[in-house]
């Protein structure tokens, strides 16, 4: 009885399903077919035998990884830095988009928008050199500026106390414009009638933002937040690699830089698969949990 009803439901939505089929096929071919590569985490890879023919070794690579003190530290550092990112870099583009949205002159708005996404196109290699000069305690412009107010100087890149903050702020600066684009898109679709209605009710700008704007972009914010949770182990390798040094390993060494120094890129496929499997299982769980919470609160989520 239930079976027939399912078939009937598919038949009723045949067009919908037809649209889905090519995509599902693509996922099967390009994503599910190669997934056997994951087994490498539990095998000792042999070039001659290939992935399928290599012999199983159980959890050997995982126990080895967690026995490395450097790995454990990199693991926590990654988590802490990404948590800061979540706290500061996640809301920043939303606020930026809201502020930008309040600008009345279309021309000025467009110019600001265009300029704000420029840093996204500069690689960390280039930016690192600039930040090194800008943030120097003796010759850097920022410390000169702070000196005028009688603060500092700070060794932003060489002092473990400031390094994580420096990472978060520089990353925020680089990505704020680019990340705000999706929110600007959401803002642009808010029905203007809603604003007019609010204004008739005597709402001021701030109340308008609270009661009209924020609820309207809540769905997209929720989804972005869920994905951001999945990035708690994400790789900011390029940034850290170009900015860090031995004095800040304690606080700045992340999974990407640690595995890079281990030389995992070369022959140790099994180990690097194990690293990514560990982080991805956690990320995936975090996404599922956040999604469940979000669903309960405002009914928007990935599922």
């Amino acid at each position, binding site marked *: 009885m239930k079976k027939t009803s399912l078939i009937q*439901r*598919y038949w009723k*939505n045949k*067009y*919908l*399903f037809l*649209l*889905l089929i*090519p*995509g*599902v096929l*693509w*996922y099967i*071919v*390009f*994503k*599910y*077919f190669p*997934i*056997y*590569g*994951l087994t490498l985490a539990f095998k000792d890879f042999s070039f001659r035998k290939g*992935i399928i023919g290599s012999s199983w070794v159980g959890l050997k690579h995982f126990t080895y990884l967690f026995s490395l003190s450097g790995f454990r530290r990199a693991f926590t550092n990654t988590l802490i830095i990404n948590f800061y990112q979540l706290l500061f870099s996640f809301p920043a583009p939303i606020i930026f988009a809201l*502020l930008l949205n309040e*600008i009345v002159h*279309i021309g000025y708005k*467009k110019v*600001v928008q265009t*300029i*704000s996404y*420029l*840093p996204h*196109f*500069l690689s960390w290699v*280039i*930016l690192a050199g*600039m930040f090194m*000069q800008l943030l120097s305690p003796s010759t850097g412009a920022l410390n000169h500026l702070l000196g005028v107010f009688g603060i500092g100087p700070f060794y932003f890149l060489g002092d473990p106390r400031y390094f994580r903050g420096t990472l978060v702020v520089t990353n925020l600066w680089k990505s704020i414009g680019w990340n705000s*684009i*999706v929110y*600007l*898109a*959401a*803002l*642009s*679709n808010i*029905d*203007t009638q809603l604003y007019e209605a609010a204004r008739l009710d005597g709402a001021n700008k701030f109340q308008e933002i609270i009661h009209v704007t924020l609820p309207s972009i809540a*769905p*997209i914010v929720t*989804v972005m937040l869920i994905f951001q949770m999945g990035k708690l182990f994400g790789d900011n390798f390029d940034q850290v690699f170009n900015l860090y040094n031995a004095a800040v390993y304690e606080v700045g060494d992340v999974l990407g830089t640690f595995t890079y120094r281990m030389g995992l890129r070369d022959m140790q*496929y099994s180990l690097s*698969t194990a690293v*990514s499997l560990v982080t*991805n299982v956690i990320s*995936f769980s975090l*996404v599922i949990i956040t999604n469940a919470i979000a669903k309960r609160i405002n009914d*928007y989520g*990935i*599922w």
Partner: protein
Amino acid sequence: MAVRRSKGETIFLAVNYLVMALLCLSMLFPFWSLLAKSFAAASVPSTQLYFWPSQTTLANYARVFANKNIWIGFGNTIFRTVVGTILSLVMSIHVAYPLSKKYLPNRTFWTSLIVFTMFFSGGMIPEYILVRSLKLYNSRWALIFPILLNTFNMIIIRNYFMSIPDSLEESAKIDGANDLLILYRIIIPLSFPIIATVVLWTAVSHWNAWFDSLIYISDGNKQVLQTILRRIVLEGSLQLMELQGGAMAMEASNVSSEAIKAATVIVATTPILVAYPFLQKYFVKGVLVGSLKG
């Protein structure tokens, strides 16, 4: 539009304008210094900061464009960007739409099937083997098919679709429209802002990608721009360290490796930067909903 503003609002606006201006200045600075450096003559020290170099030259750009491969690179990159973006967009929309419908049978299963792949993938080796066995090796399609769908982008589109009021669709259904018609006639026109966003994301990632080209392409005529520019930069710095082989360039060269590097960054980014202003009109506040309803 004469809106009366309270005093608080006026102050807020003034501060807002100022903050934006400062932020923009800080963001413009690195780009500007690269641009200035790309015009610097070899006699200008690469380590000095300047608003505009004391001696300028076009030789850096001439050097970059003298390499005939750069045109090949432009061709291939434009191909993968345009075709890749169009195909990605078409695929994403058609997958996103059914998934946005609560009445799609087993919707959770289909969504899970897709989202799962964001976190678990087989890695480079099986992907290379797959591309080989699909006979895509050394074909420009190898740069497009493996990244045809980006799950993140697709989910963003889907959620946008979900936020479109059901009422619009229901009235169309009463008029006898099927799902396809609703997608093309109602949903897509209402979703231009998010489509523009995803187009931008996809195009930029295609434009900047280079590692897949190193893995999948061995033919020099199919190389993308980024790999060729990386090579030009390398050639520039190689001239500084030529060990054997004697006198390299006998005439005093007017290019410096740092200036060439700056010029390649400008050449690599300008075309894609220009794309943004064209998409910007879709981000302008509340035009579409009103016009469509009316």
